[in-house]
């Protein structure tokens, strides 16, 4: 990982926080206060903000990077200068994944802290917040989604967008299924072919490429299995490797265009 790229990318992201983001935080806080005053259950809200789909969307905004974007030509000279320095492309990819993971954690963390403060301010009897397992899962997911998003951003934009939609679909699907929602019962999809495709897609992603890990399930399992850990690690490595291969292919020169 490159210390300079990490430090200055984080500084850049900080400088990019706009009034819109501050306004959004204020609105969310007011919403949490209202929910706490109405004695609403915060468990579903916590689920929404720690849901993989939320992490995915957050990560997508943080992973935006012109060096990774295969179609970006306008700032070739900028990256020419950067990569003329002793910065290896794998270290660049790794750094951007860390930045994305930090971005996800800071965003979700801020929302969860606002939720906690709202509950404390309104004197809720039962405080809903992350337990140790959920916190660990969140950190692990932030890292893996960071890797995934950097990989998706490195793909040509058309493929990247399609892949992003599929992942969102699968992540949201995963969340719905975890709530016991049955596709054919609760979601009005009438075409059986669509249902089958949808299920195959979700299953495949969740079985092979799903970048999250449920630490609670691992800890509470009667027999310890390495499979989720191996799957998680190999997926993260796969995304990092994919992004590095794609970045290695890029040429940084205005002469190219």
């Amino acid at each position, binding site marked *: 990982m*490159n210390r300079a790229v990490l*430090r200055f990318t984080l500084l850049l992201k900080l400088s990019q926080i706009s009034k819109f983001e501050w306004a959004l935080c204020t609105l969310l806080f007011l919403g949490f206060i209202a929910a706490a005053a109405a004695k609403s259950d915060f468990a579903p809200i916590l689920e929404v903000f720690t849901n993989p789909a939320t992490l995915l969307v957050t990560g997508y905004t943080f992973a935006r990077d012109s060096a990774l974007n295969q179609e970006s030509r306008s700032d070739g000279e900028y990256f*020419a200068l950067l990569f*003329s*320095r*002793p910065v290896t492309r794998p270290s660049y990819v790794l750094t951007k994944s860390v930045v994305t993971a930090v971005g996800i954690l800071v965003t979700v963390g801020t929302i969860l802290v606002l939720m906690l403060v709202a509950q404390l301010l309104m004197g809720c009897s039962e405080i809903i917040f992350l337990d140790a397992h959920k916190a660990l899962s969140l950190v692990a997911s932030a890292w893996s989604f960071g890797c995934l998003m950097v990989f998706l951003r490195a793909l040509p934009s058309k493929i990247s967008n399609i892949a992003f939609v599929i992942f969102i679909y699968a992540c949201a699907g995963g969340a719905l299924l975890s709530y016991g929602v049955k596709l054919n019962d609760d979601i009005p999809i009438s075409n059986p072919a669509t249902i089958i495709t949808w299920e195959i897609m979700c299953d495949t992603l969740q079985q092979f490429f799903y970048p999250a890990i449920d630490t609670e399930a691992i800890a509470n399992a009667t027999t310890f299995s390495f499979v989720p850990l191996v799957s998680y690690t190999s997926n993260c490595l796969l995304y990092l490797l994919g992004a590095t291969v794609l970045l290695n292919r890029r040429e940084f020169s205005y002469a190219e265009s």
Partner: protein
Amino acid sequence: MIEITNLSKIYKNKKGASKVLDGVSLSVREGEVLGLIGPNGAGKTTLMHCMLGLVHPTSGNILINGHVPNHLAVKRILAYLPERPLFDGWMTARQFLQYHHMLSGGKDSTAKDDIEGVLDLVQLESSARSRIIRTFSKGMLQRLGLAQMLVGNPKLCFLDEPTSGLDPVSRNLVRSIIGKWKEEGATVILNSHHLDEVERVCDRVAFIQKGRIELIERTRQIENARVSVILKWTGPAGAEERLHEVAAHALFECEIAGPYTARFILRTKSQIPVLVRGLVDAQLDVEELFIERSRLEELFNQGEGKKSDE
């Protein structure tokens, strides 16, 4: 230091393929200042970018100190100034240099002194040092670009059109920095359209056209090449005879190119003082005396001529 063997680069896009470099072979010694000249689109920047490891050659090899250009050992000693400096506009000049100081592996403990040192060297005014880069003029950006090159204390410097769009003071600054590198034994690759500048600072000049190196000459050879000097005078009458006498005495060729205009062909540039002395002795009222065309300009024009023939 740099060994390039049979380097080719083909860019492919939807419209087809275009060969930008075609079998380039070149070697650059350590401590040498090499100028790359050639018309627009000749492949100079692509060649430079191949040496920087930013562009993947289609075929051929580049070795810098025995390593491929992307090797960290190479990146640690090189610095690059792009033709179109696109720096981080949101940073201040000091932050930007701190960034490059870190990127080049500089020690945190020396960062502040190193940065102020290079800012002094490039003469960036104090008020600009804490200003954000977005507000900089072209000249200030170029000075900042030079400063970022200097922070890493490089041994191999690549400059792509470093003086384009600069005022004479800034151009002199660029020249003096190249001179400093030369004194320190750094290797410099300079891509420039300013032929006088190339002639002045480079040890050798490579003329590139259509992706090929057409010619490599030592600047001393260029200095020693024939020079055409134009003289314009206002009097006295019958000066033509005196001019022929001056030429015959110093073994120059002389031809009357028009009314009150003559052309001298000197064997080398070093004969210019002899010519001037002769003209003073001949008591001519000289209006103007200038070098008609340098050797590099000739090369350039030959290239352009070939281009238009096709």
